[in-house]
């Protein structure tokens, strides 16, 4: 953890217009919660649907993508990572710092809005708000780690990440039950299901699989990203 690197990364992520990319989605999530509350749809099934489809299914992976790749990929893309890597800071420390920044952005822009939106809809009923917030916290950290690794490994990190979130988790996960075991979204739902008593949420993946898988994915991604950063070569592909 290096505070200077962290503060530079925060400035790059939150500076000027960039913050809107992170802020618009949670604002929309809370906006929907208010709208449904207003038209009188504030029952449990609506809340679970909004959380499952919108908060966990869309906002979380998208923000993970933007935050996870955003903390490092743009610097690699335009070559300014050189200035960072030529300093006497160990590369795994740089990777870990970037991960901490991405994870904290996930908490601010995804976990808290998830809780707020669920609270607006149904208050603390059935523990839906806290359950989904906890799920979003763990899954958000996992997304941040995986997409950070992707950002170091590939120039097409965002596209690959989108294919994972949209095609693997969304499409294939919808038809093939086995694919759901390797879906961060489903792990989030397992955790949410553990906390909430709502009958409208049925998780597919056992908690005994989801939690170890999440720990392995996070630790493995951060360590691997650090190792990859040590041998990073800057060659343009355009």
């Amino acid at each position, binding site marked *: 953890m290096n505070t200077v690197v962290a503060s530079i990364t925060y400035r790059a992520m939150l500076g000027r217009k960039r913050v809107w990319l992170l802020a618009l989605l949670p604002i929309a999530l809370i906006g929907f919660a208010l709208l449904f509350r207003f038209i009188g749809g504030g029952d449990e099934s609506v809340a679970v*649907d909004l959380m499952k489809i919108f908060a966990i299914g869309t906002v979380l992976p998208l923000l993970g993508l933007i935050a996870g790749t955003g903390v490092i990929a743009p610097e690699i893309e335009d070559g300014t990572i050189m200035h960072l890597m030529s300093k006497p800071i160990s590369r795994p420390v740089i990777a870990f710092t970037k991960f901490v920044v991405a994870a904290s952005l996930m908490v601010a822009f995804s976990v808290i809005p998830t809780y707020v939106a669920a609270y607006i809809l149904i208050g603390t009923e059935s523990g839906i708000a806290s359950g989904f917030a906890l799920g979003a916290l763990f899954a958000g950290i996992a997304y941040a780690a995986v997409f950070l690794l992707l950002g170091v490994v590939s120039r097409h990190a965002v596209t690959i990440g989108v294919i994972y979130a949209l095609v693997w988790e*969304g499409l294939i996960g919808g038809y093939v039950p086995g694919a759901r075991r390797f879906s961060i979204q489903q792990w989030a739902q397992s955790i949410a299901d553990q906390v909430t008593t709502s009958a409208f949420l049925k998780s597919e993946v056992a908690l005994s699989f989801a939690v170890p898988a999440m720990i392995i994915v996070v630790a493995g991604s951060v360590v691997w990203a650090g190792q990859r950063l040590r041998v990073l070569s800057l060659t343009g592909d355009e």
Partner: protein
Amino acid sequence: MSQPTGVIHDIGYRHYDGPRLGRGGAAVALWVYSLRGTFGLGRTFKSKIMPFLLFGAMMLPAVVSIAIMALLKQAPLSYTDYAVFMQAVIAIFLAAQAPVLVAPDLRHRVIPLYLSRPVTIIDYIGAKLAAMIAALLILMVVPLTLQFVGEMLIDLPMPLHTHEYLAGLAGSLINAVLLASIGLTLASFTPRRGLGVASVIAFYMFTLAASTVLFGVFTSEGHTEAAGWGFMLNPFFLVNAVQVNLFGTPSTSGEPVPGGAGPALVVVAVVLLALAALYARYRKALAA
């Protein structure tokens, strides 16, 4: 006595005496170059992987459909639903390739160099937009046409789906224009490719999830009309509705769509809005 110390040598530079193609020629050249760029042609192997992978994914259902027609003599996949079924692939293609068209020129600040030639800002935007539209058309029309050719060759015990095929083509054109204008506009706001990809896909995933959630909630609350319009938030369903209203084909979702000219007007309004924003963006890029 001073001798001349410097001599200008004639080292053989020559003037260009050939035909000058002018503004139109330059715009067409830019269009061809951009269209090739969307599929990574003339670029490195790495930049070819993604577009061709997605193009392959787009072809897959058509190939499977031909096989089913040939072996089981069943009706082909609906031509009018193809884009809606494959919307994830089309959206990823748009998100991955729209920034390829606009980001490098913005990042390296070379727009003024283009404009030092007979190309105007309108030509530049027009060429980029036409290239994206053409690329999306290739992506959507080739599988439809392949399936139609397959249907013609295989003798099915039913009439040809010519009307559906033509409706599918028209739908592809509307889709391509709508998606290209939205995608290029969103991508042009950032000179960084990664962020461009993220913002385009964020737009699509947002509309996808929002339309699902809004439709569900409005339906359960009994606001049927609002539910139909909520569905229209997703550009693919919006174009599907236009297609339904124009050609009388069944809607993909099976739900009734907002009738009349409403969806078509929304499409036109969104395209005009996106193009105005795109034009404003490049005016600003020029001033900066």
